[in-house]
């Protein structure tokens, strides 16, 4: 949180520019600067493209190319003559005071929402640019005090513009057209926390921006959202879009999301899913979400115990289960009932020609789909398990519960949100 560079150019506060006089090249006062226009969307610090000014009670526009200097003494024109034009917003242009100041911004570095108490400008590479925002109380205090006093307040908590993403959803012409490239650097869970902390419109903007560049990431963010927000953001999307997002999720998360939809939409969305996905999701929807059946995932690696280790490792390679969740493969007896499991690490250490039956661990606890959540949690804690198989009445394996599902449901109320993860620094 220091100034951008050692020999940083002097910083100019937006509040000292807005409201300052508009002067011609001779220093004659012509009017007042009302707002500063910048263009977002490009790489680097956004350049100032013009000023909104009032001259004799009329609001007009002065392009940045017609301005020779800006500072606390005012906005100084290059020429003696004033050439007033009507202001029309061009794409990607925002008014700093009207659209950015006092509003929320995403601090990408800390993955949290901050409010812009002051906007800092500097002369960089021959053009005036936005270099950062002040999120601390000093920036606010400066604007509260009369100008003569406020000017003495130094910059407070400077936050470099490179680690900031502004919301632009409320700006008429820019709506949704500015990418937020930095959001992709965040973990889906962090993005989900931002969406939950933001207002609805801002949350929608984050999700849209994420979805525009990366559908996969959008689906991951949806997986991490709490039920309430999942529902909120899926509600007014068309069925096809919901199906697209859901089809990118793991079946158990997909079932949770579909369970959140209105009853009359579920079938339509299900029908739009790819067949294999649909079958799994539909099966999961038959279980109570508070029981083992509702927690489990139908994606696991189950092989007959006659399989050789080399083939088993091949099956692991082909499986699309997330790497951190695929910690064991399961072995079944010839009649299809579950025999036991083998940790993936044990497979790696074993001779590829060996059969699984030589390695299988028989002593494993299992669950029925109707086991209550408490039983699931207690069992996994007692046996120190990261995954536990779920069997139907015929001892056939129907799913696996992994520790992430249980941990999420066990977090005390209030912990899920922000605590730790989003704490600054």
């Amino acid at each position, binding site marked *: 949180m220091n100034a951008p560079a050692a020999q940083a150019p002097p910083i100019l506060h937006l509040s000292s520019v807005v409201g300052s006089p508009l002067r011609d090249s001779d220093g004659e006062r012509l009017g007042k600067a009302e707002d500063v226009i910048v263009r977002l969307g490009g790489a680097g610090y956004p350049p100032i493209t013009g000023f909104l000014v009032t001259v004799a009670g009329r609001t007009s526009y002065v392009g940045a190319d017609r301005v020779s200097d800006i500072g606390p003494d005012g906005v100084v024109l290059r020429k003696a003559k004033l050439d007033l034009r009507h202001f029309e917003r061009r794409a990607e242009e925002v008014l700093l005071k009207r659209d950015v100041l006092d509003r929320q911004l995403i601090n990408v570095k800390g993955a949290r929402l901050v409010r812009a108490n002051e906007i800092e400008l500097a002369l960089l590479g021959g053009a005036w640019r936005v270099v950062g925002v002040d999120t601390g109380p000093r920036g606010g205090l400066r604007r509260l005090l009369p100008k003569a006093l406020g000017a003495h307040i130094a910059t407070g908590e400077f936050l470099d513009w490179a680690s900031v993403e502004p919301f632009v959803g409320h700006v008429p012409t820019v709506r949704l057209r500015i990418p937020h490239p930095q959001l992709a650097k965040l973990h889906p869970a962090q993005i989900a926390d931002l969406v939950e902390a933001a207002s*609805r419109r801002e949350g929608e903007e984050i999700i849209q921006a994420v979805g525009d560049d990366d559908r996969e990431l959008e689906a991951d963010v949806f997986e991490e959202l709490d039920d309430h927000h999942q529902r909120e953001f899926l509600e007014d999307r068309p069925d096809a879009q919901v199906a697209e997002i859901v089809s990118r999720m793991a079946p158990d998360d997909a079932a949770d999301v579909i369970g959140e939809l209105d009853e009359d939409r579920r079938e339509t969305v299900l029908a739009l899913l790819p067949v294999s996905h649909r079958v799994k999701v539909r099966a999961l929807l038959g279980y109570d979400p508070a029981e083992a059946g509702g927690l489990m995932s139908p994606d696991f690696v189950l092989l007959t115990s006659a399989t050789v280790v080399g083939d088993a490792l091949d099956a692991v390679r082909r499986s699309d289960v997330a790497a951190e969740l695929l910690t064991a493969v399961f072995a079944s007896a010839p009649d299809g009932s579950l025999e036991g499991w083998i940790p993936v690490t044990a497979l790696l250490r074993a001779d590829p020609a060996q059969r699984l039956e030589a390695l299988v661990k028989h002593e*494993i606890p299992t*669950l029925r789909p109707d086991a209550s959540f408490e*039983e699931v949690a207690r069992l996994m804690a007692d046996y120190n398990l990261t995954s536990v198989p779920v069997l139907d009445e015929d001892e056939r394996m129907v799913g696996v519960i992994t520790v992430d599902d249980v941990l999420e449901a066990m977090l005390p109320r209030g912990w899920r949100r922000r605590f730790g993860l989003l*704490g600054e620094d």
Partner: protein
Amino acid sequence: MRRARSAIRGRPRLPARLSSRRARIIALLGLLGPGLIAANAGNDAGGIATYSSAGAKYGYSVLWIMVLITVSLAIVQKLAARMGVVTGKGLAELIREEYGIRWSVLATTAVLIANLGICISDFVGIGAAVGLTGVPVQVSVPLAALAIWLIIVRGSYRSAEKTFIWFTIPFFAYPIAAILAHPHWSTVGTQIVQPHIMSSSPYVLLVVALAGTTITPYMQLYLQSAVVERGVREDELPHEEREAVLGAVFANVIASFIIIATAATLYTHGIHSISSAAEAARALKPFAGRYAEVLFGVGLLGASLLAAAILPIATSYVVSESLGYEKGVGRRRQEAPVFVNIITGMILISAFVAMIPNVPVISLLVGVQVVNGLLLPINLFFIWRLSRSADVMGERRSSPFLDGAAGITVLVTSALSIVLVLVTLLAL
């Protein structure tokens, strides 16, 4: 098969689905929330004192005014709920974003002063209500303060909201007290619909004070922020609006019962001067019986507890929103230090002041009245302007009819409010 069968069978399962009847009742209760809480916090110690003295001084003839005030409050509360749902932001946050930091800091400062004053008066009310049974304030007030603090800071938003809804149950004591007072029901009926205008200045002043105590800034501030924190979705907007309107109506029906109870007893027996809620409770005893006193005391306790809990929250919402700090009921100090510290500070100061013997509650309330009277027009004006702005509300901006009704309400209420301030200042 040598699998260790885990002990998973035969345990009681979680109840899978609620029966439809139970689900319906829960849905109905689920409708109760911030609207009910916000409006009913207005029936606090100061409110009861005003309603009691209105009833004692002018009898049933002030009832028709309560109808007008109810309509105004319902409109304002509806707008606040609407803005909360649509924008997902509190009022202070919207003022900051649309009108700049100076307006928001001005409003925040006024809220801080006014709410602290009201909060003190409510802790005094808690002490007075419990004091009717002889328990000293040095015992009741610290206990109440601790309980309120725990509910706000240690619970979650949901659990706090549930507790606050329970706090509204004691309000039913007032209708019962009113019935025990044997009012002349047909007169009550006619006076509700029959405007009765007196031009005497004390009457006008009382009307203004009634409006001022019923429509208070913190109600809208709390409602809007709580709706946001509750996470009401846009498709639930009609429910939330209904809840806000019903809450306002319920609060004012209760207030009217307070007027009826005192009108039937104190007014008819020539006791015209009542200056506090506890005094009203004691004065009722000879005419409506011991139970009326107890009921008034219970009502006062519930109302004061509710308001003493809502005021710190509303204040803290406003400060956090306008200065951009983390907020949320149930947040721990590490998560939202400013939010929690303001709540803690307000409860501590209020409880401490309320324990000072012979606190000049009346002059305190007069001061509060002035600050609130200045704040209310600002608050209402912003609510009105923001709710009709297409930039803020998009397609959900007020319809011409709602906007017109809001405009009239804001103008009239603000005018009354300014009259109240002027009169109060001149009287000093």
